[in-house]
Each structure stands twice: as structure tokens, then as C-alpha cells.
């Protein structure tokens, strides 16, 4: 979700195989820079693979360019990685949240599994309870939320949405930048 000079990204913590829960502290949101986080909901093996591949490409980029990547460029990088496997895709639907390293503009974007970018002004959602999240976010999000209010809004949206999804839950983690 976007706020006033800040962004927040949140996910649940459950890792399971259909109805069996295997872990309650699974990490889906990865830090790609001090002001850049990417969430990778979907098939857990692809979450880990895409994270590793992204980290490799990002490191190469930062070595070549000697600067921190912009969130828009990172979004294009993720989109490219996913579209390369257009005919045999990774089953993840990334969500990217970050602040521009120079202007500190908040940026959020989401992608489908083959890399179609969606860059809105308000919020993005992904995962098995995406429909519930759409509903909660439409109701709760308002423009220009301060970081503390943004935290409350995103947490309540997430928790109430995954309470209505049997295979999501077991707590959430929120990163506010």
C-alpha cells in the first residue's frame, strides 16, 4: 500500500501443502535493498528460486552501475525474468514496494505469473486470498496515510482477509518504509 512518503508491504506466515501446515514462519517478503522489498506469494519452491535469480541479477546490476536500483527498474527486471519463462512460468505473483533512492517517491507494483506489470496509485494484492484482500483494501485504504496509520490499515486489511481463507494465516509480517 502507498502512503504519504511511505510504503508498506505485508504477508502472512503460513507454509503448507494444501491442508497441512508445515511452517508458521515462512519468509515471503525479501529485502532487495534498504528501501526495496519484494513479496513472492505462490508456489514455495518458485518463491525461493525467483528470489535467488533476482538477487543474482540485482547484484550484477549494482556492480555494473555502482548505484542502488530504482524500484521502477527493479520492477522491469522482475517482469523480464518472469516473461522469459512465458511458456513454462514460475508460479509466483510478485509484489514490489519501495522508495526511489533519490527522490524518495513511494512506488508499488504487482505482476501476474508471466510478468504483466500493474502500477497503481493505491494498493496491490496477490495470493490465494487476493479476492478478500481486494475487498478489504478497497474499503480501508485512503490516500495520504501517515506511516503509523498505514501500518494499522495494512495489518487489519491483511488479517481480516486471511481470516476468511483457510490456507492463509498463522500471523503476518509487515514492513513499513
Amino acid at each position: 500500500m502507498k502512503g504519504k512518503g511511505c510504503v508498506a508491504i505485508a504477508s502472512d506466515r503460513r507454509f503448507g501443502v494444501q491442508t497441512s501446515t508445515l511452517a508458521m514462519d515462512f519468509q515471503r517478503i525479501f529485502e532487495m535493498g534498504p528501501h526495496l522489498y519484494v513479496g513472492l506469494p505462490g508456489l514455495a519452491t518458485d518463491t525461493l528460486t525467483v528470489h535467488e535469480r533476482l538477487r543474482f541479477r540485482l547484484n550484477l546490476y549494482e556492480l555494473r552501475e555502482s548505484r542502488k536500483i530504482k524500484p521502477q527498474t527493479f520492477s522491469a527486471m522482475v517482469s523480464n525474468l518472469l516473461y522469459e519463462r512465458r511458456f513454462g512460468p514460475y508460479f509466483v505473483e510478485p509484489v514490489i514496494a519501495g522508495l526511489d533512492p533519490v527522490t524518495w517517491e513511494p512506488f508499488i507494483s504487482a505482476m501476474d505469473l508471466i510478468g504483466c506489470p500493474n502500477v497503481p496509485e493505491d494498493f496491490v494484492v496477490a495470493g490465494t486470498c487476493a479476492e478478500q484482500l481486494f475487498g478489504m483494501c478497497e474499503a480501508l485504504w485512503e490516500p495520504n496515510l501517515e506511516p503509523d496509520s498505514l501500518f494499522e490499515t495494512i495489518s487489519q486489511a491483511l488479517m481480516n482477509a486471511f481470516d476468511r481463507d483457510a490456507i492463509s494465516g498463522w500471523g503476518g509480517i509487515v514492513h513499513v518504509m
Partner: protein
Amino acid sequence: MASTKVVNIPKGGFSFENCQRNNFMAKQGFPAPKAVKTGTTIAGFIFKDGVILGADTRATEGNIVADKNCFKLHYMAPNIYCAGAGTAADLEMTTLQMSSQLELHRLNTGRQVKVATATRLLKQMLFRYQGHIGAALVLGGIDSSGPHVCCIYPHGSTDSLPFVAMGSGSLAAMAFLESGWKPDMELAEAKVLMRNAICGGIFNDLMSGSHVDLCIITREKAEMIRPFEVANVKGERQGSYRYPLGCTATLSTRVIPIEIESTVVRPVAEESMDTA
């Protein structure tokens, strides 16, 4: 990664490494997530001074609206724009790729790109993938031989016509175009007709919606009007649903201060050109 000693620098182009695994999983009954499609109503036609393209702004993922204000009019060349319907990722990537090919072509030949070149490049690429790249396009532009509008189907066939409509709302849009289009329309009339055609799609097709975007290409310039009309205004929120601060129960909080390297503002004086 195949080997830890050989670094796997990614090559360009499509990679088919996951296909076998994905087929196996599909047989096991894994419900794969759906790709975003742009259900869409797109249309284009020729008017007196050039070409006008129009599109709605809804992107769907199954039956959910994934993006209420997505951009379907893609830049190809300064004198050529393209409206796209079909699988959103395919449209985005195909038009970006074609746009860079056209720019290279323009630099190579030193001439303005012809619409026929863009059409030919696109149809050859789409035919190569036998329709698996789900991109249905309405290409419009103006070049030395006049204004052209062309529709390109995902399997690679093309039709060059005075007016076209594509997408799930094409029947509604075509109804308006068939009854309203005449040769040599003025710009104002053309805008109204295009607006009617796209709104016909928006209000009668469930997979098209939100607003109307227009692109008007004439000899002098290409003008993008986004949105031309906000056909669906978002409802007024009646109350505020803000939660009081501190109501969310947290197990732990970690505040990580980030060191910002010092910022230096250095005004750069304008240097006069050295014409020695």
C-alpha cells in the same frame, strides 16, 4: 543453476526449462494462477487528418478486475501507436520489443517508419509462435503514403481497413463504427464516434470497463488523451474506516535506522558552447 562453478548469465529470449515440471504439476491437479488478460474494447479508424485509436482501461484476472486503469495504447514509433487486446504480459513485451526494433530500423534507414513495416514485423513474430503469444493488436499510424489502420490477430493474419475493432467488446464497438463512420470525418466528430464506440464496449461487455483513452495521430504530432472520458466514476466513500493507532496486536517490532550518505547539492554553471 546447473553448476556452481559455471556462472549462469541469463541469455535473452524465451526459456523452456520449467515446461516439463509444469506439465507434470498440471497432471497432478495443481491449480495454476491465471494470467492477466485485457478483456478489452479497442478500435481505430481513419479520419480526415489522420488516425484515431481508442481503448478502455480494464485488465481482468479471471473474473476479478486486476487493474482499473491500465494503459492499452502502446507507443511504437513517433508516428505509430498500437492498441492491444489479449494476454496483458504478451502485449506489453511484444510492443516494447517491436518498438525497439522499429527505432533501430528508423536509425538504420534514416527515414520515418512506415506502418507496413510495423505490421510486417509484428505478423512475422506472431506467426512464428503460432498464436501462443495472445496478442491481438490494432495498429494505427501515418506515414508518407497516408494514414493506415491495421488489425493483427494472434496467429499472424492482418487486415488493413478504414475502421477496425478488436477485443471482447469489439462487436459493440463495431456496431457504432458501422453505423457512424464515413470518409473524411472532422476531428471533433471522430472523437465523439470513437468515444461512443469504446463506451459501447464498456457498458455492454463485462470484460471491458473504466475509462476511455484516446490517441490521435496526425502528420504534425501524436496526441495521447488519457483519460478522454471518465465513464465510470468511483463511488464516494461515506465514512472513514481508520483504525485507532495501537489496535493491532504485535508480537515484536523492529525499527531499523538507515544511514543516508550525505547529500551534496552542487549547482552546475551552464557552459557556453566552444565553437573554436
